[in-house]
């Protein structure tokens, strides 16, 4: 378990990181980047797995199951569509562009 102050520092540093890495992105990559960050929050799957793993009542199992189901969809779907989009971006200067 992490203490409140540490969590606060984590929030702050991670927020700056998110702001920094995205602030100079060309418009052309807005979609893949949004879709890519959409994939990254699919990490919620891990949290949902722990919720389901800890479950001791049927109610908790049902909620946990829904959580894992939704989280896995976020991660898998987010990955597939992002990869498909990024695969398409080509420069005319490169060889092999059809």
């Amino acid at each position, binding site marked *: 378990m992490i203490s409140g102050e540490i969590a606060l520092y984590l929030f702050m540093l991670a*927020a*700056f990181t998110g702001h920094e890495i995205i602030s100079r992105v060309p418009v052309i990559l807005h979609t893949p980047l949004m879709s890519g960050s959409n994939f990254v929050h699919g990490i919620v799957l891990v949290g949902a797995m722990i919720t389901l793993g800890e479950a001791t009542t049927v109610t908790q199992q049902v*909620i946990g199951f829904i959580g894992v189901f939704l989280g896995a969809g976020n991660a898998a779907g987010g990955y597939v569509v992002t990869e498909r989009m990024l695969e398409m971006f080509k420069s005319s200067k490169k060889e092999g562009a059809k």
Partner: protein
Amino acid sequence: MDKATLLHYVVQASYFAAAVLFILGIKRMSSPVTARSGIQWAGVGMVVATVATFFHGNILNNSGVMVNVLLMVLAIGVSTVFAWVSGKKVAMTDMPQMVALYNGMGGGSAAAIGAAALIGASTGTSHHALGKAQIALAVVGALIGSISFTGSLIAFAKLQGWMDKTFRFGGQQVVNGLFFLSALGLGAALVFELNTTVVIAFFAVSLLFGVLMTLPIGGADMPVVISLYNAFTGLAVAFEGYVQGNVALIIAGTVVGAAGTLLTRLMAKAMNRSISNVLFSNFGGGGGGSSEIAGSQKPIDAADAASLLYMAEKVIIVPGYGMAVAQAQHKIWELSQQLIKRDKTVKFAIHPVAGRMPGHMNVLLAEAGVPYDLIADMDDINPEFSTCDVAIVIGANDVVNPVAKTDKSSPIYGMPILDVVNARQVIVIKRGKGAGFAGIENALFYADNCRMLYADGQEAANRLIAELKGIDSGGGH
């Protein structure tokens, strides 16, 4: 070191590695050259974290471990297959709704974590009691996650064409405001005293609020909304991560939340509106206040349009959502290649909010095979319109409307636009007459240098290509 302690360190190290891979992955996604490896790095991080979680102490120490792990594998298996197949099959033009759908699922998952924690604590069936700060963050995360969940599903349904674009009734903002306040009130009550009935009421109101909030928002505002809900899910994940004491969730969620908020503000800025204005203003309902425009729209046929292109040296193409609807991106690129073959300079000009999600047009053009160095952002291309012979507008409307610069009474006044009107000649490819999404007449269509080519996008491009070839073989027209 005993086995349990060793496992604990392995799991924690995996989460750390995943967090690093996520950040490096997103960083690599910010340049077209390294972008594809970026998502793959992040993907490796996700697999590492997911596999490690099966060995998490809280899961292994539970007496019902077998049943729960089986349920886990079942849920992951079914959901992954569904998402993988749907994500592979979907057409590029339908990307916005898929992004909305997957994002909503993440929000729902975060809300579920919050629900399990709150119900567990309220019934005393949870392993660990929650402190006030944890309850507060669980509540906030669950609220944001619920809004993102149902809101994204409504956005999905709208983009998919399953429901009317907008749904409005009198006093809607008041009703929505009341729902939001009720959700906040119920959430606050939970911080003071956990009660299962209140938990259920809180979730019911939060989920319903997500629906109500998204119903009145129209199609052209979707880039802002999708981006906003993406940031919401990120934050919800971060808050629920704190409740669980899981650093991977906190870091990944916060990074996405911050990045998503920035992107949302960029989108809103490109429309010269605040985020709250997009969410709560019922924009584009009537637009009746706009003034009449003198003059008439002047039609042109494909043959004449083709000879204009044949004479031109520099052509700028401005695509909008209409191109996506007509699935015309491939034909437009074919037309562009015909022009390039005849030694003409061709560029594509993209408005930041063209389409239904941030960068929507870039994705479609990339799908058709347009190299990204032919595609220019608004600020770079605007000075170039005055040096271009022909500008072709296909399926774009409000983002090229000069009214945004000239008419103070117009609802879109102040919105940055593409200065298409400065081109020597403008050809607008459009299905028929009629106003854009915002219901505002487009002064460009009435300009002296503008000609209307009334046709479906694909068909128009086909005819232009045929006419161009005809000029070649027939030696003139």
